């Protein structure tokens, strides 16, 4: 056991995989700089800077994966997937079905996501629920270094397409690059346990589709991914003081969902509060409600999500993104029901 940063963990696990499998290639804009360590160690052929042509190079990742490579293709921010999503929606996600199961697409789309550093509505989206709507895509959203590395390994080992989202508030290099820019004059509400933590000496894969129970609770279950997992833990502690026993479930994988873990927790607590940095409507928060109801489990339900375009102004932004306070308040309201 050693400790490592969130971003370092991803690159470290990636490096381990690349060292053992020459079919793994990395490409995307500025990867020679953003992944300088991989660029130096594995050379420009395997860590290849790309033009600003997401549609072409994400589409190329599909073809490359079909033809024997295991590409890890980088989209600089998940917000930019808009120009390339056809490659996922109509190609990567559909190929196995189209080919009658004969052909699979072992590719990873790696993209920073999330807000909390004042980058505005086109650069702070989460979109994991949006992408998870597409059958055939696996969507992974880690919340700490150990999961980040382990899930990157399983993403690479997976025979189908995986969208791997790394939250910019957890990836310190990204936050420094896009946010502080070396300034000491700005602060961000960064969850310590998420940005740096214990990791194994040798990476082993963390299974896809398995949630992690961070805390058992008999009154209410808080479910989330990425940064908000830590907000939930904070909220659970605050709720404890108010005599409310709140459990916290870290989904880790948005699709496929760990339905057992979810239903087990909610059937015990009877209350589900979804905390989702992605947009509220037609996304993850609704899906979790449906899954529990389909299991025939009666529940009280609430959600704390991003409900609108994320504002640039830090103050407004804090009001729009889920916060510990909003979680606690909504949980207490739910307790009254």
């Amino acid at each position, binding site marked *: 056991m050693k400790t490592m940063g969130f971003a370092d963990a991803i690159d470290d696990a990636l490096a381990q995989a690349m060292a053992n499998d*020459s*079919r793994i*290639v990395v490409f995307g804009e500025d990867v020679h700089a953003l992944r300088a360590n991989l660029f130096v160690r594995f050379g420009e*052929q395997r860590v*290849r800077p*790309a*033009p600003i*042509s997401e*549609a*072409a*190079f*994400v*589409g*190329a*990742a*599909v*073809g*490359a*994966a*079909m*033809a*024997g*490579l295991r*590409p890890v293709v980088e989209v600089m921010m998940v917000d930019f997937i808009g120009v390339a999503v*056809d*490659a996922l929606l*109509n*190609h990567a996600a*559909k*190929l196995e*079905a*189209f*080919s*009658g*199961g*004969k*052909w699979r697409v072992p590719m990873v789309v790696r993209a920073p996501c999330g807000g909390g550093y004042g980058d505005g509505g086109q650069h702070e989206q989460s979109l994991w629920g949006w992408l998870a709507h597409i059958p055939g895509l696996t969507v992974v959203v880690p919340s700490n270094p150990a999961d980040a590395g382990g899930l990157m390994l399983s993403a690479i080992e997976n025979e189908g397409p995986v969208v791997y989202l790394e939250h910019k508030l957890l990836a310190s290099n990204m936050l420094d690059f896009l946010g502080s820019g070396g300034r000491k004059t700005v602060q961000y509400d960064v969850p310590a346990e998420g940005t740096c933590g214990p990791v194994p000496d040798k990476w082993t894969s963390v299974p896809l589709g398995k949630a992690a129970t961070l805390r058992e609770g008999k009154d209410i279950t808080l479910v989330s991914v990425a940064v908000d997992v830590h907000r939930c833990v904070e909220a659970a502690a605050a709720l404890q003081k108010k005599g409310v026993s709140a459990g916290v479930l870290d989904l880790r994988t948005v699709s496929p969902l760990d339905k057992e873990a979810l239903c087990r927790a909610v059937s015990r607590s009877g209350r589900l509060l979804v905390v989702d940095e992605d947009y509220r409507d037609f996304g993850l928060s609704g899906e979790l409600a449906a899954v529990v109801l389909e299991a025939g489990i009666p529940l009280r339900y609430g959600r704390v999500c991003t409900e609108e375009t994320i504002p640039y102004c830090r103050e407004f932004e804090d009001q729009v993104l889920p916060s510990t306070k909003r979680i606690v308040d909504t949980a207490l309201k739910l307790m009254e029901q």
Partner: protein
Amino acid sequence: MRPDIWSLYRQMLRSRRFEEAVIDLWEEGKISGEMHMGIGEEAIAAGVVDHLEDGDAMALDHRGTPPLVVRGVDLVLLLKEFLGSRDGLCGGMGGHMHLFSPEHLSASSGIVGSAGPVAAGFALAAQHLRPGNLAVAFFGDGAMNQGMLLESFNLAVAWKLPVLFVCKDNEWAITTRSKHVTGGNLLDRAQGFGMTALEVNGTDVEAVWEAAKQGVERARNNGGPTFLLAHCIRPEGHFLGYPLLRKSLESMKEMVGPILRSLPARKGASLGERIASLGTIASLIGRTVTEKYSKRRDPIYRVRQGLKGEKSRLDEIEKEVAKEIQQAVDIALS
């Protein structure tokens, strides 16, 4: 090395007869979806695919049949896929717009322009895993306005990818005359990305073969991508049942009725503009119909003219191919 016109002719004929069989099955209601024919493009398919070897890949568009037939994909599997049968090439899941043959590294897609990025990816894999192999992308003139295809030109040049981009220019995008919505000319456009670009008469199989040879060799020798602009025709219209080619009167009435009603409608454009619009539609229909019935640019007719002297051998191939296709159809339907 010179092209073997006889084997090229046989391949073209196989594709033609295969698709003619598909037309019958479609008419009988046994095939669903938008059935796009490659009739008129056989010389391009034969002239290009003849150069491919094991490990070479193909990214196809919605007219993927001829390249797959020429590449040697099992005709029965193909037909069964068209029929949506459980034991078709893709288990009936993909259909004729989504044909996949891993053994031939061949994949098609109904999304216009997507053959470019996919071929670039195939070529990237070749660069890493199979040096000397290449990827071919087949697409139409309409696709030349799709951003992802244009991006893939640049990507292939920047990464020096072994790709042969083949633009089958039939001058149509469904009912649209491409020149009407396309700026400049397609050769300049491809060259503008720093790519070697060749133009060829796509109804002349030997010319296609010679041009493709250059591109294929450049790709195999790590010389990067080549763009091949091949002019061809679209005698069957955009797809089977194409309204502009309907023989039945009532369907014509259906189309013309509302148009004529809106001609005198109150409010709207000036009479001049309305007449102009009518003229546009009329000329599109006219052009579509003449294209169907003009043998002149039929690639198969063209080869036959060249080989007129050898009638007996032509007939022999004709018989053999007819037999092969009939057998495939019989098995597929049994």
